């Protein structure tokens, strides 16, 4: 748990509700903007995509890199964040 960032812990610790996509771990200002342009303006929409990909972190990482230009670290962090959130709340 010590390797996760504060942002990660903040997100995974509670239901995401209406949080912005930038609340996701690994998603900063630039990536967030790109996602919003694609229509993924809320965290739960990205969650929807994650669920569509059957919660496969590898697939999701590939998708995220493709759609937003995220690098491996950022995409991996976001995937892990969503996975843990699902484990806790879904």
């Amino acid at each position, binding site marked *: 748990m010590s390797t996760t960032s504060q942002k990660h812990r903040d997100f995974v610790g509670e239901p995401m509700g209406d949080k912005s996509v930038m609340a996701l771990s690994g998603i900063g200002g630039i990536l967030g903007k790109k996602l919003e342009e694609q229509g993924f303006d809320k965290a739960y929409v990205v969650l929807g*995509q994650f*669920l*569509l*990909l*059957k919660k*496969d972190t590898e*697939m999701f990482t*590939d*998708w995220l890199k*493709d759609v937003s230009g995220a690098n491996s670290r950022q995409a991996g962090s976001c995937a892990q964040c969503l996975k843990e959130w699902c484990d806790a709340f879904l």
Partner: protein
Amino acid sequence: MSLSEKSDEEISNLLAEYGIKHGPIVDSTRGLYEKKLETAMENVSVNASPDKTYYREEEEEITYITYHTPVKHESYTNIVKRRGNTDPDDEEEESYQDTEPAIQMTSTTANHSAVQSRKPLTKSGGGMWTVIRLLLLLAVLAALLYYVYC
């Protein structure tokens, strides 16, 4: 064959064919799955190219086994073994009567295209053997003359 022209169901079938686990094919997931399929197709074609299409028929092993030869008329059996895919005959046996020196020949394995087809002499005879025969006859005659005149 363009992936983007295929139906969602066809994409789904293709993904299953390549062993790619996938979710529903919808607008947001389709692009990703198409890319996955393209990569998978490229990998398959790369792996399939080094097919073993070379033939084994090139390998031939020819063993000559010759002959212990007492000088006077005896029949030699020359066994030629040839193993190869192109040649259905396994053994050829030829026997010919001749006074010939003992010649030992080693087995030769010819790989690939270098097929050493040294066939044993038929009864019609080769040039070399007649020369050797003549020499032997001359030697015998010389010995006889030697004994006569000594």
